[in-house]
């Protein structure tokens, strides 16, 4: 134990401020992705009290859809159109496709079980997750597919503009793709907050989440609201999938599992059902993971992340922003 502590201090010293910044940067970028996925867990839980285990796999499908667009346009090394329109189309197709997939999952796997005991949709969610993972595995032979994002837009296989530095902090670059990931994540989250708090759909969503039956008697088509919620949740996951592909450079059929688990952790730590909670906790999980890898060692990162989850649940079971269990009168 002392030795471990000594090693950590040693590592902090040797990485210095530059390393600390790099870890901060890495954690925020990764955490933005976790936040986007965590939002889906929290929204779907909020409206159906369902842990949608398949959500991580929707994110995986999003990554593959983005990859499909990239391939259809000739691949990263040789794209037929400009970089900016290409990336826009990748996002559009992946977000739309994932959204439709999410709606389909709800329609065909969960809706028929709406009035079944709570455990039934939970099992169905596991089933959908396995279905998506194994289908993807069969279609991809279990191989990782390379976005070649590093070469995207570059000449002769050199790194493309996505990996150009936008600015540097203490000599450490922050690249275009990192800004792109965080920037679009923040934009999407702002749009979501706006949608939920300001629009009628948002109000209908909150009403349905609080009391589905009462909402339907107030003229709210709750099935449609639930569909919309799945759509939005899945759109965010699909966007995260493409971001991941562009930033990390690869996709594979199993990528949704661990990312989903971590995002779920974030959703719980943030207070399941809380949108702001999912956003904050997603970045938090990213940061914890990043610093744990950098300072303690990769073998500890998951233990640290999930250990914190357990501790947190003991200390504050409602999560960071959990509702103070509003009493129905």
């Amino acid at each position: 134990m002392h030795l471990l502590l000594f090693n950590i201090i040693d590592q902090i010293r040797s990485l210095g401020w530059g390393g600390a910044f790099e870890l901060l940067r890495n954690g925020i970028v990764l955490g933005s992705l976790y936040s986007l996925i965590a939002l889906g867990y929290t929204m779907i839980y909020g409206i159906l009290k369902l842990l949608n285990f398949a959500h991580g796999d929707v994110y995986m499908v999003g990554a593959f859809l983005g990859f499909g667009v990239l391939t259809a346009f000739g691949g990263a090394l040789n794209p037929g159109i400009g970089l900016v329109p290409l990336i826009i189309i990748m996002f559009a197709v992946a977000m739309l496709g994932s959204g439709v997939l999410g709606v389909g999952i709800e329609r065909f796997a969960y809706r028929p079980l709406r009035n079944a005991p709570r455990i039934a949709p939970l099992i169905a969610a596991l089933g959908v997750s396995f279905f998506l993972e194994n289908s993807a595995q069969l279609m991809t032979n279990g191989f990782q597919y390379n976005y070649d994002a590093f070469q995207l837009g570059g000449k002769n296989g050199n790194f493309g503009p996505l990996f150009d530095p936008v600015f540097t902090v203490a000599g450490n670059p922050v690249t275009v793709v990192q800004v792109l990931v965080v920037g679009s994540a923040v934009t999407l989250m702002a749009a979501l907050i706006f949608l939920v708090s300001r629009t009628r759909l948002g109000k209908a969503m909150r009403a349905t989440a609080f009391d589905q039956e009462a909402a339907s008697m107030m003229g709210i088509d709750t099935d449609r609201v639930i569909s919309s919620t799945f759509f939005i949740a899945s759109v965010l996951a699909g966007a995260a999938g493409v971001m991941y592909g562009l930033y990390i450079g690869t996709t594979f059929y199993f990528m949704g599992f661990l990312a989903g688990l971590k995002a779920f952790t974030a959703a719980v730590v943030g207070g399941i059902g809380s949108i702001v909670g999912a956003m904050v906790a997603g970045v938090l999980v990213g940061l914890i993971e990043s610093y744990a890898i950098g300072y303690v060692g990769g073998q500890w990162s998951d233990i640290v992340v999930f250990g914190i989850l357990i501790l947190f649940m003991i200390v504050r079971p409602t999560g960071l922003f959990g509702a103070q269990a509003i009493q129905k009168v």
Partner: protein
Amino acid sequence: MAEPQPSPESTQTKPLLELEGVWKSFGGLVVIDNLDLAVNENEIVSVIGPNGAGKTTLFNLITGIYPPDSGAIRLDGESLVGLPPHKIARRGAARTFQTLRLFLNMTVIENVMASQYGQTKVGIARAMLRTPGMRREEREIRARAEEKLAFFGERLMGYRWDQPAYSLSYANRRRLEIARAMATEPRILLLDEPAAGMNPSETHEITELIGKLRDDGGYTILVIEHDMHVVEGISDRVVALDHGVKIAEGTFEAVATNPRVVEAYLGTSAAVTK
């Protein structure tokens, strides 16, 4: 959708809400027993009856929480049987709940805005793309919500609108439920014990309000109420239920003195005396 229109002439012949031979049982227990009921346009009809008589079940049947085992339920001549609750609400039947069911995770005015969902076309794209038309609609919804809340005067004043619904007092929660129901632009309001839990002055106020809802708001009202002062004060007509059977119908005086009604109440509690 338009504001509730004053009735055309035909209402004299055709009731707004009409139940015919409605049955409902839960696992062998008959809760609504061959019930006929008609509510005319602009009328206030009270439903009374001892606990467990089937009054709330009647509302649940009308609003589509569950379908009747048999029988017909019509609003303005069109059948409601088999429609999902939100479609029934959009046809013009809105209700409040005996056990308050406000959206406590939202503000006062949001509660009233949320129930206008059925009046507007909603799509994610439409909601997100802030076209001028959308913004106008959004403003209109807020204006309409404010208008409904204004009905309650001092009680639900402007400063409360943006407070969370859970911060309201019990009586105000009942008022907000009515405002929320009004915002669905119904033709008939179904109020389930609107005076329950209120003190005498609040009860007096709600009695006046129900009258005002009909007179100024133009609503037709079907109300369940235990408080006989309220029932006497508002009703054009009273219907008494016992074990799901209609045991009396008529003016308040006629029903309150009907021996079967007195017996039904004495059998459970002597609540019918004022």
